[in-house]
C-alpha cells in the first residue's frame, strides 16, 4: 500500500497506543469518581481512598496516556517520513517500550496497594514505597531508550542525506526528544540521589526545597513535552488535511528551537510562594517564562495564516468568508481546531499564573486545575483524539466509516461541552479561594459554603461537566475499539493515509538544525537561571526531613 509503514513499526506504535488508551480509560474513570466525592455524593469503599484515586488520575492521564501516545505518534511518523526502521532501531524501541511499561506497572501497583498516595508531584517528605520511585526511574529510562532509538534512526538518515535538512516531522520529533531528555535530568537527579536512598532508609533526611526545585525544573518542560507533539500535528498534519502546505518551514523550525531554549529554565514560576528561593531568581525565571510565549504566538500566527490562505483559495470572500470554507465536516480537522481554540484562554490563564505576585491569587486553588484541563486536558488531549481517528485505522488497515465519523463528532463536542462547564467552574471557584486536591470540601464557613452556590461557581457544575467528560471518554474508547478490531478492512482506495504536508525548506537556514548549538545555549540559560539558587539550597540546607506517610 502506498504510504503505509512497515509492519514492525505498526505493531510498535499500536502497542504504545494500546497502553495509552488503557490508561486513558482508567484515568478518566478516576476523574468521574473525584467530582462525585467532592460533592459528598459518593463514598468510596474502605480499601480505596480519594487521594489514591487522585494520584491515579493525575499519573495515568497526564503522564502515562500522553507519553505512550506521543511515542506511538513519533514512531509511526518517523517511519513514515524517514523510511523504515532498521532491526536495531526497532529492537531498541521495543526495549524502551517494555522498560517504560514495566516502570508504569510498578508505579500503578504501588498506588493501588495504597503505598504511594503522594499525587503525581510526589512532594517530599511524603514518602511512598521505594519501589514507586524505582518505577518512576524505569519509566523515564524507558522513554529515553525509545527517544535515543528514534534519534539513532534520524542520524542514520542524515548520514545518507548529507547537507539536506531533515523532514519537518523528524526535525520536530528530535527537538521534542532533546527537550524531554534535558528536562528529565532534574527529576532523575531527585529520584536517584534524593528519593531512592531516603525511601529505602540509606539516608535519614531529605532536602525538601531542593527536591521541589528539581521536580519543577522537570515539571514545566514536561508540559511542553505534551504540547510540542500537538504543535507538530498543527504544523505538519493540519495543512495536509486542508490540502495545502506548511506556512513557513523556517518559522516552524525556529519555534521548536525556541521551545528547547526557553521552556526549561522557568520552573520557579511554580514555586513563587515558597521560601528558600530569593525574589530575584523567581523574577528572572518569570521573565524567561514570558519568553516561551513568543514561539506560541508564532504558532498561532502560522495556523491562522494557513487557515485564511487556504480558505481564500477555496473561494472565501470578504474579511471572514474564508472561515466558512474550512473543512468543518472533516472531524480530523474540526477536533484540532477546537483544541486550538481552547488553548487561547488556556495560554492567557498561563500568563496570569506565571505573573509573579499575581500567582498568589490562584496558587493551588481550583483555578490551576481548570487551567491544566484547558491546556493539556483539551488542546493536547483533543489534538491526540483528532490524530487517533486516522492513526489507528492507518495502522490497522481499517476504515474510519461515516458512522464512526458521526460518533467522533459527538465525542469531541461532548468533550468540549463537558470541559467548558467543568473548567469554567474550576476557574471561578479558584478565584473564590476553593483549594485544589481536596476531597469533599465541607469547611464550615460562609466563604466555603458559597462554593456550592451559584450557577458557574459551583462544585455541582464541575460534577456535571466531569460526568459529560466521562461519557465522552467512554465514547472515544468505543471508537478506538471499533477502529482497532471491528471497522471494515480498507481496500487500496479507501485506506487511511498519514497526512504529512509538504514543507518548502529551500530558504530555511541550515543553522536551525545545528543541535549542538541549541543544546549548548539551552545549558547556558539553565546554568544562569539555576546555578546560584540551587547551590544556595544545597549549601544552606536545613537538617533533612524524615519519612512521613500521612495517608
Amino acid at each position: 500500500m502506498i504510504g503505509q509503514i512497515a509492519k514492525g513499526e505498526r505493531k510498535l506504535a499500536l502497542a504504545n497506543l494500546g497502553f495509552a488508551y488503557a490508561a486513558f480509560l482508567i484515568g478518566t474513570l478516576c476523574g468521574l469518581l473525584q467530582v462525585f466525592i467532592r460533592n459528598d455524593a459518593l463514598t468510596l469503599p474502605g480499601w480505596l481512598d480519594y487521594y489514591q484515586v487522585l494520584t491515579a488520575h493525575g499519573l495515568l492521564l497526564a503522564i502515562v496516556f500522553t507519553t505512550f501516545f506521543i511515542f506511538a505518534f513519533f514512531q509511526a511518523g518517523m517511519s513514515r517520513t524517514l523510511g523504515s526502521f532498521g532491526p536495531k532501531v526497532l529492537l531498541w524501541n521495543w526495549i524502551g517500550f517494555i522498560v517504560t511499561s514495566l516502570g508504569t506497572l510498578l508505579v500503578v501497583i504501588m498506588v493501588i496497594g495504597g503505598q504511594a498516595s503522594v499525587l503525581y508531584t510526589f512532594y517530599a517528605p511524603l514518602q511512598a514505597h521505594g519501589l514507586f520511585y524505582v518505577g518512576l526511574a524505569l519509566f523515564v529510562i524507558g522513554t529515553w531508550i525509545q527517544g535515543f532509538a528514534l534519534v539513532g534512526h534520524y542520524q542514520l538518515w542524515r548520514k545518507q542525506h548529507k547537507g539536506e535538512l531533515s523532514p519537518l516531522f523528524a526535525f520536530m520529533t528530535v527537538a521534542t526528544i532533546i527537550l524531554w531528555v534535558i528536562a528529565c535530568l532534574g527529576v532523575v537527579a531527585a529520584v536517584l540521589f534524593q528519593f531512592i536512598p531516603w525511601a529505602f532508609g540509606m539516608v535519614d533526611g531529605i532536602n525538601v526545597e531542593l527536591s521541589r526545585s528539581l521536580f519543577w525544573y522537570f515539571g514545566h518542560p514536561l508540559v511542553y513535552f505534551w504540547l510540542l507533539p500537538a504543535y507538530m500535528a498543527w504544523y505538519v498534519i493540519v495543512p495536509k488535511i486542508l490540502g495545502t502546505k506548511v506556512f513557513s518551514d523556517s518559522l516552524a523550525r525556529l519555534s521548536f528551537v525556541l521551545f528547547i531554549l526557553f521552556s526549561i529554565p522557568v520552573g520557579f514560576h511554580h514555586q513563587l510562594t515558597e521560601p528558600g528561593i530569593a525574589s530575584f531568581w523567581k523574577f528572572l525565571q518569570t521573565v524567561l517564562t514570558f519568553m516561551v510565549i513568543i514561539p506560541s504566538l508564532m504558532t498561532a500566527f502560522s495556523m491562522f495564516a494557513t487557515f485564511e490562505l487556504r480558505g481564500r483559495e477555496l473561494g472565501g470572500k470578504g474579511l471572514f468568508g474564508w472561515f466558512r470554507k474550512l473543512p468543518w465536516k472533516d472531524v480530523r480537522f474540526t477536533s484540532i481546531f477546537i483544541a486550538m481554540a481552547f488553548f487561547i484562554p488556556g495560554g492567557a490563564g498561563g500568563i496570569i499564573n506565571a505573573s509573579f505576585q499575581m500567582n498568589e491569587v490562584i496558587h493551588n486553588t481550583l483555578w490551576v486545575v481548570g487551567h491544566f484541563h484547558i491546556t493539556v486536558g483539551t488542546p493536547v488531549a483533543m489534538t491526540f483524539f483528532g490524530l487517533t481517528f486516522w492513526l489507528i485505522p492507518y495502522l490497522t488497515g481499517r476504515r474510519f466509516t461515516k458512522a464512526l465519523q458521526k460518533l467522533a463528532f459527538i465525542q469531541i463536542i461532548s468533550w468540549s461541552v463537558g470541559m467548558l462547564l467543568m473548567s469554567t467552574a474550576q476557574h471561578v471557584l479558584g478565584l473564590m479561594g476553593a483549594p485544589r486536591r481536596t476531597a469533599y470540601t465541607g469547611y464550615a464557613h460562609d466563604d466555603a459554603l458559597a462554593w456550592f452556590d451559584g450557577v458557574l461557581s459551583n462544585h455541582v457544575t464541575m460534577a456535571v461537566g466531569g460526568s459529560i467528560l466521562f461519557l465522552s471518554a467512554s465514547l472515544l474508547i468505543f471508537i478506538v475499539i471499533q477502529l482497532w478490531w471491528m471497522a471494515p478492512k480498507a481496500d487500496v482506495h479507501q485506506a487511511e493515509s498519514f497526512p504529512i504536508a509538504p514543507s518548502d525548506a529551500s530558504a530555511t537556514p541550515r543553522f536551525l538544525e545545528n543541535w549542538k548549538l541549541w543544546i549548548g545555549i539551552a545549558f547556558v540559560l539553565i546554568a544562569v537561571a539555576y546555578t546560584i539558587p540551587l547551590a544556595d539550597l544545597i549549601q544552606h540546607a536545613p537538617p533533612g526531613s524524615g519519612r512521613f506517610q500521612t495517608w
Partner: protein
Amino acid sequence: MHLHKYEKIWLIFGIMALIIFLSVVGVSAFHQGHTPSGGHKKIDPEKVSETAPFDQPGVHEKEDGTYEVVMVGKAFGYDPGKIQVPAGKEIMFTVTSSDVVHSFSIVGTNVNMMVVPGEINHKKHTFQEPGTYLVICNEYCGSGHHFMSTEIEVVEQ
C-alpha cells in the same frame, strides 16, 4: 529567514504586550514591595517547637505597633488554632511545618503561602475589614488534608 509583514506586526505587538506585562509586575514587585511570600531562614524540622520564634507560636505585638503571627502547620491543623488579630494593622505571618509540606492560605486575601519543612516563610498583610477569615491548607498533606483549616478573627480596635 523570511518573516511575513503581518507576522512582524503580530510578533512586535505580542512582544510589546509581554514587555508591558513584565514591567507592571516588576515595578509592583520591586518598587512597591508586592513580592509573593518568601524567606531565607532555615530551621531544623524536628526541633520546631524548641526553636525561636516557633517556641512561642501565636500573635505578638511588636514595638512599632505592627504584629507578628507565628504559626506552625502540621498534619492536619495549625498551631495555634483560632487566633484574633486587629484590623488595619500590618501583620507579618511567619510559618513553618513540623512534618510535611502544607500551605497557609487565607481565603479572600493574597495570603497564600507554602509551608515547607526546614524553611521559614513570611508574608505581610493588613486586614482592612473585620470579620472571620477562613484559613485552609491547599497543598496535599495526607488523608486529612481537606480537614486542615482554621479561622482568624479580625476585630476592630
